[in-house]
C-alpha cells in the first residue's frame, strides 16, 4: 500500500512515498511498528503520526482498502 511522506519522512523514505505490503486490515499502531521496522530512522524522530484520509488517525483505527495514508513527522509550521 502506498504511504505518502512529507518533510523529514520524505528523506528517510528516499522519495515522496513508500510502499508497504499487506497493510489493509492492520491497525494504525501496527502500521507504525512496521514502518519503524522497515525504516529505523523513523523511530529516531521525536515522534510521528499517521494521517488517514486527511485526518490524524488514532492507534486503534483499522486501515481499509483505498485509504489515503500519510506519515506526519513532527510539524513545524508557523
Amino acid at each position, binding site marked *: 500500500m502506498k504511504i*505518502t511522506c*512529507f*518533510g*523529514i519522512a*520524505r*528523506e528517510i523514505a528516499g522519495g515522496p512515498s513508500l510502499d508497504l505490503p499487506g497493510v489493509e486490515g492492520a491497525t494504525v499502531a501496527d502500521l507504525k511498528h512496521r514502518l519503524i521496522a522497515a525504516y529505523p530512522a523513523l523511530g*529516531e*524522530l*521525536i515522534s510521528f503520526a499517521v*494521517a488517514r484520509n*486527511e*485526518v*490524524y488517525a488514532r492507534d486503534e483505527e483499522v486501515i481499509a482498502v483505498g485509504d489515503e495514508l*500519510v506519515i*506526519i*513527522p*513532527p*510539524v*513545524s*509550521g*508557523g
Partner: protein
Amino acid sequence: MIDVALRDTPLNLDECARFVSHPSCGGLCFFVGNIRDLNLGQTVTHLEFDAYDPMAIREMRKIAGAARERFDLYAVALHHRKGDLAIGDAAVIVAVSSVHRAPAFAGCEFVIDELKKTVPIWKKEFREDGSHWLNARP
C-alpha cells in the same frame, strides 16, 4: 466567517485586515510570523516549507472554527506560506476580530499556538553549516 489560505506567494496583512473588519468589531488582533536571520545562535540563509496541502487546510479550518466558538470571535483569517522563503518573509498571518479586545488577543494567540501543534507543515532550515528539518529529532 473564516478565511484559510496556503500559498506559495507573499502573504498580505491588509487582505487579512479587510476580511476580519466589521462594524460590530472594536478589536482586531494580528500575528505575523516572519523568518528570522538567527535560530539557536546560527545564521539562517533561507527556509523551505513543505505542506500536506489538503490536510493542512482542513486543520487550519478546524483551528479557526474552534477559536471562533471558544472566544466568540466574529472572523478569523489564517494564511500560511509554503515553498522557499527568505529572511524577513512572512510565513504565517493570523487575523481575528471581536467586539472587545481581550478575546481578540486570546483568540489570536490560541490560533497560532494550535497551528504550531497540529497543522501538517514542515520547515527546513538552511544555515551556513547545512540544512535540517526543524523539530524533527530530539
